[in-house]
């Protein structure tokens, strides 16, 4: 049947049709919709979970694959760093049921900390990797990936990029699904990794990979088309940009859909008769290096150009225009038209939503620490946006969970400065807890602020252990954050609603005064998972036009109009923070009945 699917939905549907038995992952843009789509289309035969983090997901899936199940693990590229410990060993141990690990890369980057390239991870772990160039191809390829994984008893990586994940296309999908019945776990020495076994398996992997490369040379999505003496090599979404930029030009073009093991045989055929190759790919020059290596190995006199030669930009994502300018210099194709000159535009960075509880939490800490030297270590989530003016409450952000530990490191060097760490509820469960144990054990003196908004907001509101809801639709025990903190030895723990501003400020002051590890849990739901109870309006007769509401809290619903504050009714969530900040009492709340 014909369907209009997002790349991530296509991957999910492809996995369902391939008979996947278990799907797990951790939310991360641009990968999140894959698991959500499986859950939405689950007839009950597939086990689906948001795991607590990517490492847990990888291990859960590995166990199921040991038992013969077909498994899919989803994460974004930086999640693969977290899961790399099980991944590296799993590459040696292997699997029984097909196991596909989706790690979505993010050229740009558009919503990530790094522009790392999962294809390198595949080379590093010596694992096969599939790299789809479009949503349709992703749908077809995921089934191939399962079959390949099972045939060779190895986990395989699957690496779409943002434009494939979040691009939608009309495509033909199957009406029926394969049924895969797991055999169950069969005890065998091969499942227990020991140095001796690792040595033997290492030899096997090194022997296997060139054979896989040979086989992949005839894989249906690794292609060579066109003719000429100047070639173009590519992979992923860049292939589509090149097709578009080439227009009618029939240049010799190689598309590499399995960057590792590299399809050497196909590449040699491609290189035959060429004098030059331009490699256009995103992130790292992976295909480019492979071709340079191949030319050296086979003494081929072909010039390989790309990122390393400075012909293609080193960072950021490709576009049809960027490809056109490369091909203009290389093949003499028409250059892209010059972009028009635009008038100065208002800058519009992302901001915390109107009514976001994080705004109140940051503001409370800021008020409590007024006049004192304090450092605020932040973390990954919507609350990273607390760095923007006027809040300016995020001094560092590194990776999931690092707020707790970065603050400790700073505190050891500057013990007289007050150190705060801000962590969201989902991040706390994912990788915050060990950091808190570290702080307690090593007698650190930090104040932990847990921003508990009952969801994983940034990635689109997924449940987590604190919400008591699972992806199987079950209601389970809510894991309690204050109970965990108390259990690991945090002596000063309080739970406060950040919109009760006076109380919130007092709680922060008390926690900050405590010697040792202390914690304030700010509990108030994200606006996306709650309903507004009121709406606020400015009484323009009372408003003095002091702009305090804007300068102190920066709610996007408030702007100035003819010298008075104005609240945009379609944005206001009625959180009351502005009313608590306004010195004139100009903000009037109207409660919904």
């Amino acid at each position: 049947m014909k369907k209009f699917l997002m790349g991530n939905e296509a991957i999910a549907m492809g996995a369902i049709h391939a008979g996947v038995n278990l799907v797990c992952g951790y939310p991360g843009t641009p990968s999140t919709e894959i698991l959500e789509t499986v859950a939405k289309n689950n007839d009950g035969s597939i086990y689906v979970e948001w795991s607590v983090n990517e490492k847990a997901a990888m291990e859960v899936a590995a166990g199921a694959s040991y038992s013969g199940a077909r498994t899919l693990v989803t994460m974004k590229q930086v999640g693969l760093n977290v899961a790399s410990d099980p991944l590296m060993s799993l590459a040696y141990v292997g699997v029984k049921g097909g196991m596909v690990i989706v790690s979505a890369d993010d050229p740009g980057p558009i919503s990530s900390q790094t522009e790392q390239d999962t294809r390198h991870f595949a080379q590093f772990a010596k694992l096969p990797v599939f790299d789809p160039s479009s949503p349709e191809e992703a749908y077809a390829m995921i089934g191939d990936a399962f079959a390949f994984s099972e045939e060779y008893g190895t986990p395989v990586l699957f690496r779409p990029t943002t434009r494939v994940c979040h691009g939608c296309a009309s495509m033909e999908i199957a009406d029926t699904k394969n049924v895969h019945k797991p055999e169950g776990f069969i005890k065998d020495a091969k499942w227990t990794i020991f140095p001796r076994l690792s040595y033997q398996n290492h030899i096997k992997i090194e022997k296997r990979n060139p054979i896989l490369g040979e086989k992949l040379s005839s894989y249906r999505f690794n292609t060579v088309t066109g003719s000429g003496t100047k070639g173009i090599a590519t992979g992923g979404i860049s292939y589509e940009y090149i097709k578009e930029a080439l227009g009618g030009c029939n240049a010799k073009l190689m598309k590499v859909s399995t960057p590792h093991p590299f399809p050497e045989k196909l590449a040699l055929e491609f290189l035959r008769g060429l004098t030059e190759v331009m490699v256009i790919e995103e992130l790292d020059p992976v295909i480019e290096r492979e071709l340079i290596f191949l030319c050296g190995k086979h003494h081929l006199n072909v010039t390989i150009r790309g990122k390393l030669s400075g012909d293609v930009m080193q960072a950021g994502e490709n576009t049809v225009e960027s490809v056109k300018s490369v091909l203009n210099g290389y093949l003499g194709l028409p250059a892209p038209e010059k972009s028009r000159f635009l008038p100065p535009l208002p800058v519009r960075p992302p901001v915390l939503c109107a009514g976001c509880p994080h705004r109140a939490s940051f503001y409370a800490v800021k008020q409590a620490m007024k006049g004192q030297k304090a450092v605020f270590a932040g973390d990954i989530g919507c609350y990273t946006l607390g760095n923007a003016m006027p809040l300016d409450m995020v001094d560092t952000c590194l990776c999931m969970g690092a707020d707790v530990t970065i603050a400790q490191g700073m505190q050891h060097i500057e013990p007289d400065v007050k150190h705060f760490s801000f962590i969201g509820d989902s991040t706390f469960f994912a990788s915050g807890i060990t950091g808190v144990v570290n702080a307690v054990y090593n007698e650190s003196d930090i104040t932990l602020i847990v921003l508990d908004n009952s969801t994983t907001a940034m990635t689109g509101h997924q449940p987590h252990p604190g919400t008591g809801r699972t992806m199987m639709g079950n209601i389970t025990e809510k894991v309690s954050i204050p109970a965990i903190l108390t259990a690991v030895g945090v002596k000063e723990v309080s739970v406060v609603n950040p919109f009760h501003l006076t109380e919130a400020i007092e709680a922060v002051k008390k926690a900050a005064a405590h010697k040792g590890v202390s914690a304030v849990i700010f509990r108030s739901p994200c606006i996306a998972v709650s309903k507004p109870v009121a709406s606020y309006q400015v009484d323009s007769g009372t408003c003095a036009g002091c702009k305090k509401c804007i300068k102190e809290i920066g709610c996007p619903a408030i702007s100035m109009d003819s010298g008075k504050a104005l609240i945009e009714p379609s944005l206001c969530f009625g959180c009351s923070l502005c009313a608590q900040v306004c010195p004139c009492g100009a903000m009037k709340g109207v409660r919904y009945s």
Partner: protein
Amino acid sequence: MTVNCILSGVGGQGTVLASKLIAQAAMDKGQNARTAETIGMAQRGGCVVSHVRIGDEIHSPMIPKHSADVIIGFEPAEAVRCLPYLKKGGVVVVSRKAIPPVTSSLGNSSYNGSEMIAYLQKEVARLIVVDGEKISKDCSSAKVLNVALLGAACASGILGLSMDELKNAISKRVKPQFIEINSKALEKGALAAKMTVPHHT
């Protein structure tokens, strides 16, 4: 024939749904469609752009610069920001109402959108300005701006889709209780387009 359409606005305005409606309507007619969306951090009140492409010979999910037949701007400055994508002679449908970003409220610049509308009037051959605020009021819903703008774009003829085809798509993609007000907003948007007098004649 290919149709390239850009929808640009501010996170939370419903650009993604509008792009899905266009794609759905085109697909129902047996055409192929591709879209690309902004999902993630930018959705929190930042600039969001959706690309919709209809036709068979389409590769890139993103519309190349100078190739959009129409830009549907949910906000004046966001429409201007996307002008580099517009084809010569292309159509711009824009909502009159500005959404000032926090950065401009914090500073002393008073952005209200009128200078952006004036710029569009100067630069764009076929401009349709929609009073989204009034339509929202008439429909008593702040959430119908997206569909009202779609109605205006549809009436301009540039999408190659009929009102009925879009209504059909709405009935497939929108929750049953909201179908009626969305259809109403679609009509009102179309009316606004019909009342726009071409100024470059």
